[in-house]
């Protein structure tokens, strides 16, 4: 068992070493602050691992249990409850939700734009060096306070009491050891120092940027005097809670029972336990009758709630308070109702003032008319926490108002005061913002289009999981807790499926997609945007872009892919729309049907497209005929995985930046799971960094691409890749590999080719490739161009003779389409062996 009392950056040290090291503390803090470390990923992982080690019968748990039991500061059941509570707190799910709730983002320390129309960035930043003073009465609090401090990115110094156990040291030592990034331990100091050692404490506190003080009033006052004036003082002092029975509810037996139960639970040791029950009356007889009712409930309920016997000091406190009340009975000011076995007692007092109970099933019952709530309670506002209100519905608003104005921080139903929810504020505030500073950056124009400074940094990555196919992904059963928002997916490759998201994921994805759109050239301050994506029928397009434009606070005309093209065109002209967002096929139809209108208007400056490929010929047509200046992909993404990449103003063609905040990207060889040679085509494999409920780990989205190794002139360091089409677009036939995209690209490059194009693969000797197209160009001309331009095709058709190439003109309705969204199938493989997919 560990015998040295202090933990110093992962190392156990004794008193002498502690004194020696204090002088160097300022320099050490400086060194740690200089390093650009991101604690969070390592911390979350370490917390999760630590939670696992706190499972019953795990070795660490047994070690901690025996240490605490030997130390004697907690009963075995308190030890169990405490350790269970820590394990629950440490789960990744809980911590992520806490960070999101309290700091408003999963990456709260990244400088991000707070308004996309301005060049202002804000972020949370740690206070720096945060000193925690643990209370001596609750063994878990010190360590948990440190973990909160670490979540906020701080270097944490925990002072425990001179007679405290080494629980916090042991737990936090293990936490540091479980951190795979190796950054955590340098941020953790725990020392057991008696409050009498003022000089030592002063030396430590002199470095403090923040002080988190727990404990009783006297202890907190002592800590306040040690804290430098410049340090933020975060006071977690003692609080008191009570129940309130409004008139009309005195006969509410189930509520009285519920409050009685809460008086028994935890022996009232929680801050939110009722210590007093106020009754809205001024009539002594009514109060006495209520007290008798509560006594009957306690009589029935108390024996069923396991009891923790008070220690000598607690027994003495109960006795003293009770004896004073008994003496006051001789003045008709109070009386005591006590169980025969002395396990619970009610102290009825006819004065209204809130009194603290000596606990262990001891409760005050006092009169408090509504009109006196403020006067009676407000003087004690520094101590008020929870009120469990029992009232008729119509009284709730008024009572809540009065209680909150009096200083109460939580209002619950009577009997439910102990219940809390994940992410609940603690004593009226969120802890993490109190341990942080809100900092800002007003950028220069150089980074004006970069909405997130994290894009300028590069991270390391390790991949190990097996590749996740689309089928496996779609078969994944998402827990109901994470199933909030459903979109149709899988439309382009067969049977429709639904993709499911949490709202939090959805909004985070849309926020990043918004940043992508900003990078691509949308100007929220100036552009008048029309959202022309399809909506309804569970499609995500319209809704997503609505959110994206809302996030950007761009002007938006939510038209959707409206069927009345003339109306849409006229609205664009009338409303001086400058920017269109939609699917290429819809945009093409819209412009061709209102050709004259748009040629005359020439006011559409920007087109952001998505959902389909937009050919070079069409782009040229938008530029030349309609005066569009900027045409770019709105986002590269899939319904399943969300936004994957975006184009910056320097991204031409199919070049994209990776949404590095959302995903990691691997590009693997076409036929084996090895990284593709840089610059060579490969399969795009994404791993989501933030996604609740379902893990998108090494997800093969079905697209092909290649890395673009050169740095982007825009300054972003997020990796760049070029999209090369769907994975299925590459197929093996006639002893070679061919790519659907190349057929269309060569035809577009040589002709004003704007028809649809489908490849049908059939058995034969040699195998047959049939190109079906709606183009008006003569098939022979198309064949000629393809054999001239497409070297691989020419080799197998002309040189090797292993493939027969046919070109057929067809009507649009003759082309095979997906059953769901009616998208064109690029390749139809009719071969028996069906080896089309490599």
């Amino acid at each position: 068992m560990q015998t040295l009392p202090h933990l110093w950056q992962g190392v156990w040290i004794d008193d002498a070493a502690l004194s020696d090291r204090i002088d160097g503390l300022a320099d050490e803090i400086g060194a740690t602050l200089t390093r650009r470390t991101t604690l969070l990923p390592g911390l979350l992982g370490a917390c999760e691992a630590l939670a696992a080690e706190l499972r019953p019968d795990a070795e660490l748990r047994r070690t901690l249990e025996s240490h605490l039991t030997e130390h004697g500061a907690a009963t075995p059941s308190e030890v169990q409850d405490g350790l269970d509570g820590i394990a629950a707190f440490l789960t990744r799910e809980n911590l992520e939700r806490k960070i999101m709730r309290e700091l408003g983002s999963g990456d709260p320390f990244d400088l991000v734009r707070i308004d996309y129309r301005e060049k202002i960035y804000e972020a949370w930043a740690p206070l720096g060096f945060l000193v925690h003073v643990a209370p001596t009465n609750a063994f878990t609090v010190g360590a948990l306070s440190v973990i909160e401090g670490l979540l906020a990115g701080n270097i944490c110094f925990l002072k425990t009491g001179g007679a405290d156990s080494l629980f916090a040291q042991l737990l936090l030592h293990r936490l540091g050891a479980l951190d795979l990034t190796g950054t955590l331990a340098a941020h953790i100091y725990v020392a057991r120092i008696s409050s009498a050692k003022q000089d030592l404490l002063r030396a430590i506190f002199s470095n403090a940027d923040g002080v988190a003080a727990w404990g009783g009033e006297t202890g907190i006052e002592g800590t306040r005097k040690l804290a430098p004036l410049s340090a933020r003082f975060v006071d977690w002092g003692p609080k008191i809670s009570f129940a309130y029975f409004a008139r009309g509810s005195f006969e509410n037996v189930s509520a009285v029972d519920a409050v009685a139960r809460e008086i028994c639970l935890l022996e009232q040791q929680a801050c939110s336990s009722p210590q007093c029950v106020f009754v809205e009356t001024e009539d002594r007889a009514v109060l006495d009758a209520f007290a008798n009712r509560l006594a009957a409930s306690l009589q029935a309920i108390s024996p069923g709630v396991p009891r923790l016997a008070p220690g000598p000091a607690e027994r003495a406190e109960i006795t003293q308070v009770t004896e004073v009340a008994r003496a006051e009975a001789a003045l008709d000011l109070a009386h005591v109702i006590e169980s025969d076995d002395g396990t619970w007692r009610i102290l009825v007092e006819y004065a209204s003032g809130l009194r603290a109970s000596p606990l262990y099933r001891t409760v005050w019952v006092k009169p408090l008319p509504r009109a006196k709530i403020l006067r009676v309670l407000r003087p004690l506002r520094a101590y008020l926490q929870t009120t469990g209100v029992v009232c008729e519905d119509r009284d709730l608003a008024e009572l809540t108002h009065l209680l909150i104005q009096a200083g109460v921080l939580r209002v619950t139903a009577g009997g439910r005061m102990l219940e809390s929810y994940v992410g609940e504020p603690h004593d009226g505030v969120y802890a993490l913002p109190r341990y942080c500073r809100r900092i800002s950056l007003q950028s220069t124009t150089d980074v004006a289009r970069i909405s997130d400074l994290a894009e300028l940094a590069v991270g390391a990555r390790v991949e190990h999981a097996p590749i996740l196919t689309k089928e496996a992904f779609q078969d994944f059963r998402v827990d109901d807790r994470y199933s909030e928002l459903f979109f149709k997916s899988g439309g382009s490759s067969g049977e429709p499926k639904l993709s499911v998201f949490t709202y939090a994921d959805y909004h985070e994805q849309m926020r990043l997609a918004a940043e992508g759109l900003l990078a691509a050239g949308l100007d929220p301050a100036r552009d008048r945007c029309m959202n022309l994506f399809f909506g309804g029928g569970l499609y995500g397009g319209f809704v997503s872009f609505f959110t994206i434009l809302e996030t950007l606070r761009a002007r938006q005309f939510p038209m959707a892919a409206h069927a009345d093209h003339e109306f849409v065109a006229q609205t664009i002209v009338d409303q001086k729309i400058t920017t269109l967002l939609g699917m290429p096929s819809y945009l093409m139809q819209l412009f061709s049907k209102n050709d004259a209108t748009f040629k005359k208007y020439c006011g559409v400056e920007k087109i952001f497209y998505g959902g389909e490929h937009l050919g070079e010929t069409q782009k040229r047509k938008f530029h030349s005929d309609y005066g569009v200046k900027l045409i770019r992909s709105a986002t590269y993404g899939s319904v399943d995985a969300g936004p994957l990449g975006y184009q910056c103003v320097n991204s031409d063609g199919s070049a994209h930046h990776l949404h590095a905040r959302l995903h990691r990207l691997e590009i693997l060889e076409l036929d084996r799971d090895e990284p593709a040679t840089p610059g060579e085509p490969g399969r795009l494999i994404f791993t989501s960094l933030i996604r609740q409920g379902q893990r998108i780990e090494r997800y093969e989205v079905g697209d092909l691409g290649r890395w673009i190794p050169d740095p982007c002139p825009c300054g972003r360091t997020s990796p760049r890749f070029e999209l090369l089409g769907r994975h299925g677009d590459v197929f093996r036939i006639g002893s070679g590999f061919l790519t659907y995209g190349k057929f269309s690209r060569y035809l577009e490059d040589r002709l004003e080719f704007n028809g649809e194009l489908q490849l049908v693969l059939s058995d034969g000797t040699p195998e047959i490739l049939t190109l079906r197209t709606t183009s008006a160009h003569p098939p022979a001309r198309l064949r000629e161009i393809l054999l001239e331009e497409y070297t691989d095709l020419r080799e197998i058709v002309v040189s090797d003779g292993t493939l027969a190439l046919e070109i057929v003109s067809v009507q649009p309705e003759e082309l095979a389409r997906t059953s769901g969204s009616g998208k064109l199938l690029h390749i139809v493989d009719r071969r028996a062996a069906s080896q089309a997919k490599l």
Partner: protein
Amino acid sequence: MTTAELRVPGPSLSSVEKLCAIRTPHRSDAEADSLFVVAMREAVDWHQERSPFYRKLLAQRGFQTSAIHTIADCARIPFVPANFFKSHEVLSIPREEVFLHLTSSGTTGQKSQIFFDEWSIRAPQRMIDFIFDAHGWTTPQTPVNYLLYSYETENGSKLGTAYTDHFLCKYAPGREVFTALRLTESGKHDFDVFGCIAALKRFAEGGAPVRIFGFPAFLYFTLQRMKALGLSPLKLHPDSLVFLGGGWKSHADQAIDKLAFYEEIEARLGIPGVRLRDGFGSVEHCIPYVECEHHRFHVPVWSRVFIRDLGTLKVLPFGEKGFLHFVSPYITSVPAHSVLMGDLASLHPGHECACGAATPFFTIHGRAGTSKNKSCAVAAAELIQRER
């Protein structure tokens, strides 16, 4: 009225008067015991007749004076918790007979307040006379210098500790009196540590015995400051006397062990350990308890002490820790003749102490209970903290 003429306020209290006139503090015999029992019966009757509160308390507990026959029976007399007096005024005398109204010196929270008729305050004061006489501390021929670690007062202050400390100055003529907690213009008190050090230096040079009374914390901080300033130890007159009161209990984080403290005083001021004494007393129970030369609080002939279980309130045997329960018939102004204190204490037979006193002695083990019981020493501690 001189002490010689001290009279109980009613003829029914003749045994009370007799008991309180016993000049031998640690007398212990059957005669004293039976006098005590009779005096307690008189006291209970007195309060039952005059205090509606106490009358109702006795009725509620079904207690009758006739049940008191032995010292052990005195434990059954219904007690009033000391804390009760912090929030309630209960009198057994007409208000116009109130001679003194003492409040505890706490600067925050509720003040303890006890009302005294002349008898009820003079009788304990005379007991201090008896104790000083018994210890040989009454030295009218030897002038001394006084250092009072108590509040400097305007005339007429009712602060209990200040009242007590100035009262203690009558046993020897004063050459100089220095009060450590100086009254400022704003009416508050400032701890004048440099004044104290200067006074001690003067006293050491002057050669006369020094008497230091009051809160131990302030003396401790004076010694600490002397050490911090690198001042060499002083050699005060060996007949000097340190008699402290108020205790450390409420700021235990800064307190040091009593015996270590005595060693510190001996080392810094040169006063021998047998001349360093602590006192124990309270506004709610004014019988003076003064340490013997072995630093133990023997129970004087005028009171009896029981130790009660913290939960059941049963009387505990020697050596066990529980509530301190004082019983004494001395007080006629309020029904505080049986008071349950908030202190955790144990009682020990007199023969366990080598000082020769036959009466049992008690040891204080801190406060019983968990709440902050703000007494004089807390207020003093607050003052110290404000000082820094």
